[in-house]
C-alpha cells in the first residue's frame, strides 16, 4: 500500500519536473527561432533577387517597387541613420546617467532616493509611442524654432536626427541610470571607507575609488543602453517623419534638422506593403541587421560583466 503510494508519487514528481523543464527550454527554442526565422527569411533577399541585392550594405539607394524605376535595396542610409542617432543619444546619456547614478548612490539622502527610484521605474516602462507623441507636440516645434536658420527647410526643421536623438535620450536614460546604480551599489563600503580614511574628499572618492571599481558594471549599463537605443522603434520613427531616402546634403549640419531615416523606420514603412517577395525579404533583412547589432552589444556587455570584480 505504502509502496504503491510512493511509486505513484515518484511518477507524478517526474512528470511535473519534465513539464517544468519543457517550459524552461521553451525560452531557448524561442530565441533560436527568432534567429533562424528572421535570419533565413532576411537572407532570402540574396537568393530571390541576387542581381540587385549585392548593394545592400554599400548603396543608399532604396527602391522596392519595380514600377517606380530600377529596383535597389541599398540599406546604407537606414543603417547610417541608426548609427548617427544612437551615437548622439549615447553621448548625451553617458555623462547624465553616470552623474545621476553617482548622485543617487553617493550623495542622495534616503527620502529623496525614495522619490527618485519610482520616477526612474515609471520611465523605464514608458510606452515608446507616448514619448513619440510628446516629441511631436513639444520637441518638434521647440527644435524647429531653434534650428530654423540652419535647416534646409524651416517648416520641417523640427523633424529628423536631432529630435530623434533627444527622444532616444528620454527612452534610454532611465535604463542606463538604473543599471549604473546597481553597478555602483555593488562596490563594497570598504572601498569608500578606505579612500575617505586616507583623507580624500567625497569627489576624490567617487572619481578615484568608486567609479574605477565599478567600471565594468558602468560599461555594461552604457552598452545595454546602446543596444536599446538601436532597437527603439516608434518614439524615433514618429519624429523622423517617414521619407524613403537619405537627403543629399548628409554631410552638413542641416541634415540633422530635416526629415530623415533609420533602420526601424524602413521596416515600419515598407514591411506591410512590400510589392515583391524580394522587397519583403529586404525589410526582414533590415530587422536581421538590427538583431545582429543588438546581439553583439549584448555579447560584449556580458563579456565585460564577467570581468567585473564586484557583482
Amino acid at each position, binding site marked *: 500500500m505504502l509502496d504503491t503510494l510512493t511509486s505513484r508519487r*515518484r511518477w*507524478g*514528481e517526474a512528470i*511535473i*519536473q519534465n513539464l*517544468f*523543464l519543457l*517550459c*524552461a527550454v*521553451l*525560452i*531557448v527554442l*524561442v530565441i*533560436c527561432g*527568432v534567429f533562424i*526565422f*528572421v535570419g533565413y*527569411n532576411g537572407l532570402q533577399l540574396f537568393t530571390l533577387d541576387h542581381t540587385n541585392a549585392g548593394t545592400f550594405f554599400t548603396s543608399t539607394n532604396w527602391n522596392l517597387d519595380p514600377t517606380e524605376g530600377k529596383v535597389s535595396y541599398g540599406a546604407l542610409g537606414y543603417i547610417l541613420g541608426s548609427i548617427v542617432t544612437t551615437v548622439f543619444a549615447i553621448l548625451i546619456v553617458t555623462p547624465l546617467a553616470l552623474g545621476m547614478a*553617482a*548622485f*543617487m548612490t553617493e*550623495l542622495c539622502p534616503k527620502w529623496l532616493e525614495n522619490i527618485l527610484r*519610482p520616477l526612474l*521605474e*515609471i520611465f523605464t*516602462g514608458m*510606452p*515608446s*509611442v*507616448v514619448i*513619440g*507623441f*510628446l516629441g511631436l*507636440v*513639444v520637441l518638434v516645434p521647440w527644435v524647429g524654432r531653434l534650428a530654423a536658420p540652419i535647416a534646409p527647410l524651416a517648416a520641417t526643421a523640427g523633424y529628423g536626427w536631432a529630435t530623434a536623438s533627444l527622444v532616444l535620450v*528620454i527612452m534610454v536614460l532611465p535604463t542606463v541610470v538604473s543599471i549604473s546604480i546597481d553597478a555602483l551599489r555593488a562596490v563594497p563600503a570598504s572601498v569608500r571607507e578606505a579612500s575617505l580614511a586616507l583623507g580624500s*574628499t*567625497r569627489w*576624490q572618492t*567617487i572619481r578615484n575609488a568608486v567609479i574605477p571599481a565599478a567600471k565594468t558594471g558602468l560599461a555594461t549599463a552604457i552598452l*545595454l543602453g546602446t*543596444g536599446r537605443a*538601436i*532597437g527603439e*522603434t*516608434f518614439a524615433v520613427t*514618429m519624429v523622423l517623419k517617414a521619407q524613403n531616402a537619405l537627403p543629399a546634403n548628409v554631410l552638413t549640419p542641416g541634415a540633422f534638422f530635416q526629415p530623415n531615416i533609420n533602420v*526601424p523606420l524602413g521596416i*515600419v514603412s515598407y*514591411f*506591410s506593403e512590400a510589392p515583391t517577395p524580394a522587397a519583403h525579404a529586404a525589410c526582414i533583412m533590415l*530587422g*536581421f541587421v*538590427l*538583431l545582429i547589432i*543588438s*546581439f553583439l*552589444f*549584448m555579447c560584449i556587455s*556580458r563579456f565585460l560583466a564577467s570581468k567585473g570584480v564586484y557583482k
Partner: protein
Amino acid sequence: MSAHQQSLQEATYSQNELHPARRERLVRHLHTNNRIAMVVLSLMTALVVIGFLFIIVYLLVQGFPYLLNPDFYSPNPNTEISILPELYNTFYMLVLSEIILIPVSLAAAIYLVEYARQGLLVTSIHLAAETLASVPAIVLGLFGYLVFSSLLGFGYSRLSGALTLLCLNLPFALRLFEEALTSVPRDLREGGLALGSTRWQVIRTVVLPSAIPGIVTGIVISAGKVLAESAALIFTAGTLSPRHPYNLDPLIGSDTLTIHIWYVQTIGAGSYSSADAPTAIAGGSAALLIIALLLVNIGARSIGHAIQRKVMST
C-alpha cells in the same frame, strides 16, 4: 643605496612634509573641486528629474480635458474620437497573454530555482533569456509575423499579438519569478523535505505561498510592459480596429491603445473628418497610459504585500 633611490626618497619626504601654506592651498583647492563636483552632480540629477516630472505633468494636463469628454468612451462606432474599442482590445490582449505567460514562466522559474543543478543547461537557459531580452521589439514583431501569422496561419489577430507579447515578456517574467522564488529561505524547504514531502509538495505548500508577493509584483510589472508595447504588435495584431470589437474571438485583428496613438499620429492622421481628432485621441490616450503606469508602479508592491498578509493570516 644608489644615488637615484636616495633622491627618490628625498622627493617623497619633501612631499610628505608640505610647507603649511602650500598644504593650506592644496586643501582649499581639493575642497573647492569637491564642492564644484557636488554641485554639478546635483544639477545633472535636478535637470533629469525636472525633465521627467515635466513630461508626466505635461502629458496629464494636456490630456485631462479629453479624458473628461464622454465621447472619448462612447460605444457608438461612428464617434471617431472614441477609444473604447482600443481599451477593450488592450485589456483583452493583456489578459490573453498573461494567461499563457504566468504558468509558462512560473514553471520555468520553478524548474531553474528548485530542480535544476548548476550546469550547462541552466547557463544556456539564462543566456537565452538574456539574449531574448535584448532583441528589439520590432524584430520580435517580424518573428511573430513569420511564425504566428504566416506559418501557423493565425494572420493579423489578437492571438498572434498575444503570443508575440508572450515571447517579449518571457525573459522578464522569468527573472522576476526567479527572484521571488530565491528570496524564500532554504530552511523552509528543508523543513518540508524533512517531514517526508516530495519536492512538488514542498513547492506547492511552502515555497509558492511565501513567494506570492514577488510573483504578484512580477505579474503586475509584466502587465505594465504589455500595456506599453507597440512595435511588436503592428505586424502581428494589425493597426486597425475590428468592425465588431466587443467579443472574445481571438482570431480577429485589432489595435491596442499604443498602436492607436501611433496610427492616428502617422499613417491614419488624414482619415479623420475633424483636424483636432488625432490630437484629441493621442493626447487623451497618452494621459490614460500615464495614469495606468503610475497605478502599476505604485500598485506592484503594495498589492503583493496585501495578498501575502491575507494568505499568511488564514
